[in-house]
């Protein structure tokens, strides 16, 4: 039969992680809570709101003390109408995975139900909210998780979040000669034919002029 991490295990791991995180960084305005997904098995995860200036310290703690060894995803979001305190948001999704190097000719076969302590896989969602600004900036964690490297490159390329201290930052999905300051997932950029009527007025696209004509090759 198949196996899975039970809801009790995930709850236990998440509560433990939140308690440790709050004890250590509660005074630094880090707010951690246990949340549950609404899909599938409704597993628990840790959601933490971290101020940008403390992100490096929190990241180092997670990586080296809390066994969070996997930076899976970095999402940047632009909120032009989000108020003075919330112009941008950067969300890091991190995982704790029970993966270790193996001696030759051996392997580790985990049985999900019997995992305890730091071996229980756990998901972290770290949210960094930035005020309304032209230059949203977050400290880079490239040196802490190698996996953050290209995730951060992508987030800068598409959303325009600057990662302070990131080495070798360059375009990854957009062309290398894209104009400086062009980040297509910012909300002022509209996709062509986003409007229904516009599309049917000129279905063949003969009169079409790209909105970014002359700026993007």
């Amino acid at each position, binding site marked *: *039969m*198949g*196996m*899975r*991490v039970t809801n009790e295990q995930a709850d236990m791991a998440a509560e433990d992680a939140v308690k440790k995180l709050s004890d250590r960084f509660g005074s630094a305005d880090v707010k951690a809570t246990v949340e549950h*997904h*609404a*899909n*599938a*098995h409704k*597993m628990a995860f840790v959601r933490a709101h971290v101020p940008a200036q403390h992100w490096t310290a929190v990241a180092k703690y997670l990586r080296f003390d809390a066994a969070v*060894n*996997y*930076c*899976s*995803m970095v*999402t940047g*979001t632009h909120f032009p109408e989000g108020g003075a305190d919330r112009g941008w948001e950067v*969300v890091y*999704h991190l995982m704790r*995975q*029970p*993966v*270790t*190097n*193996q*001696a*030759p*000719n*051996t*392997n*580790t*076969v*985990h049985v*999900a139900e019997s995992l305890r302590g730091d071996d229980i*896989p756990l*998901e972290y*969602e770290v949210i960094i909210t930035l005020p309304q600004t032209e230059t949203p900036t977050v400290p880079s964690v490239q040196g802490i*998780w*190698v*996996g*953050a*490297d*290209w*995730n951060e490159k*992508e987030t800068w390329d*598409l959303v325009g979040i600057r990662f302070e201290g990131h080495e070798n930052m360059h*375009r*990854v*999905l*957009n*062309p290398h000669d894209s104009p400086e300051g062009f980040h*297509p*997932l910012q909300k002022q*950029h509209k*996709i062509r034919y*986003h409007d229904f009527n516009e599309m049917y007025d000129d279905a063949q696209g003969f009169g079409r002029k790209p909105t970014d004509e002359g700026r993007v090759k």
Partner: protein
Amino acid sequence: MAQMWITMGPQHPMTHGLWTLRVKVDGETVVDTEAELGYIHRGVEKIAESRDFTQITPYCDRLCYVSAMTWANSYIYAAEDLLEVEVPERAEYIRLIAAECQRLASHLMWLGAYGPDIGSLTLMTWCMRDREMFLDLLQELGGSRMHYNYPRVGGVKRDIPVGFADRLVAKVKLFEHRIDEYEMLLDESTIWLVRLQGVGYAKAEDMVNAGVSGPNIRAAGVNYDVRWAHPYSVYDQVDWEPAVEKPTSVKGADCYDRYRVRMEEMRQSCRMILDAIEKIPGGKNTNYANGDEMILAKAPTRAPEGATGFSHYECTRGASQFYIQGGGDGRGKNPYRLSIRSPMFITIPYVAKTMIGYKVADIPAIMGSFDPCIGETDR
């Protein structure tokens, strides 16, 4: 001897898609590499902001054109988290069967493309022959061979047709024998062994730190799998265990281990499908009407501002993830922001760095063993 840069790609048999690997060589030895991606960036994340939650599914099909079903499922679980939908159990079983059929088809595509990399063209023809069986099965579900648009928020588009179960079981049982045939062909081929063994070592901890996931991790000796670690669907109710290898070196898994783990994973997928089709609630030879509550739950179409949805999914190449923020245009009908985590986008730069120290002729063997797919990489 002078060092020089060689550009492999964007049109190169090694790349399995459109991307460029720039290699700095010293004679025959690779001393530095750089990956360049983005050739087929379609901007799916931006397009999704002007589509409603059902309309996004076909775009997610097209993220990876050899593994459309798993990517659409992956998106659907995130949308269900956002919209808070309970999925009927029969629909979960159908999704599981569909996803595992897709995994078989995708691994066959990988093996079929990897064979010519190594010099075994026979493999291509054999794998294409067997892949056809699973594409036919998926066509019965979704209506097309490549992009099925099959899952829906709250269930699936159509029930399994009458007679599907018998055809599925017959094909999967036949395919189990075919896996043995492949192994007889490959594991006794000197060329195959010489080119794969002792090449492209990658350690488990390095890979996790770099964000590599899926079969590539399991090849390095740990049975970590999203299907049990961050469970979704009904994988806990069917008979299977994660494929895992025993790497022979302290340097981690080599190309041969990654080949072995995918063969084993195909066996496990067969085992899962055969068990799931017997256990499916409502019977394997009944066909419920479209929209019946056995296969499709009612789902809201709007998500409030501030709501978020997230999904882990074991795609064929590793863990894919979707993160959706609700409250976009149309009073929440569209997502405000949809973010996609593609396993290969993270893996390709890592693999490029593992090639350092090997010979130029090893590059196709190393790159192919990680199963690159550029559709999902560039999104």
